């Protein structure tokens, strides 16, 4: 079974996302939460890195964290899926393990 990776820091604050992207396996899921959601916005400096992983991993953002930061689902890179807290729970429950990239 696959791994759910959560990233809760902005890519401009620290390299949590970069490190996460370097350690995910094909078929894993990445969920951006808290300040981590900013990475999924179109035009963000890490867009290329995220797109590079979108082919073999599923990328999600937590919608309430997005909304809190004034961002909308349509501002996200194509292929990124918004989930609510229930979706977060579903992702965790359907993964064999959760790795938090702090």
């Amino acid at each position, binding site marked *: 079974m696959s791994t759910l990776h959560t990233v809760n820091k902005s890519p401009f604050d620290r390299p*949590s996302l970069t490190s996460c992207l370097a350690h995910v396996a094909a078929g894993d899921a990445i969920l951006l939460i808290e300040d981590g959601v900013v990475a999924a916005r179109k035009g963000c400096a890490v867009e290329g890195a995220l797109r590079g992983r979108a082919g073999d991993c599923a990328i999600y953002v937590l919608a309430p964290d997005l909304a809190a930061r004034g961002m909308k689902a349509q501002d996200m890179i194509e292929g990124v899926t918004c989930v609510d807290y229930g979706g977060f729970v579903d992702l965790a429950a359907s993964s064999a393990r959760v790795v938090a990239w702090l």
Partner: protein
Amino acid sequence: MSGQRAKKKFLYVNRKAPYGSIYALESLEVVLIGAAFEQEVSLAFLDDGVYQLMAGQDTAGVGMKNFSKTYKALGDYEVRKLYVETEALAERGLSLADLQEITWEDEEEDYAEKPSILLVDRAEMTRLIAAQDVVLSF
């Protein structure tokens, strides 16, 4: 009760340098507490986490507890696998020679001292994570 439960594979992932934040010390304390539960425990050191294992740490000048010697005691708690990512070392200008020597005693081989630090590359680290039951991040 616990005897009937299967052992689980626990990996503690360490990604922060010591002393600048509480993560490294907290991780070590949780590892030592967790060791009492007889699970299959290993530690991973990547990103700034590799600084936790530096040899010659001296905290006298900063007035903080030097907990680096505790890593040497992990073998006594049957924590014998400290995986260190080679890329993380290289990015920081470090090599295995910069880390403290950490060993465990193999009772089955007349208490021979064996190295606890195992160098793995990033791809191996990815596989290691994927093989765990529980991953705790610090």
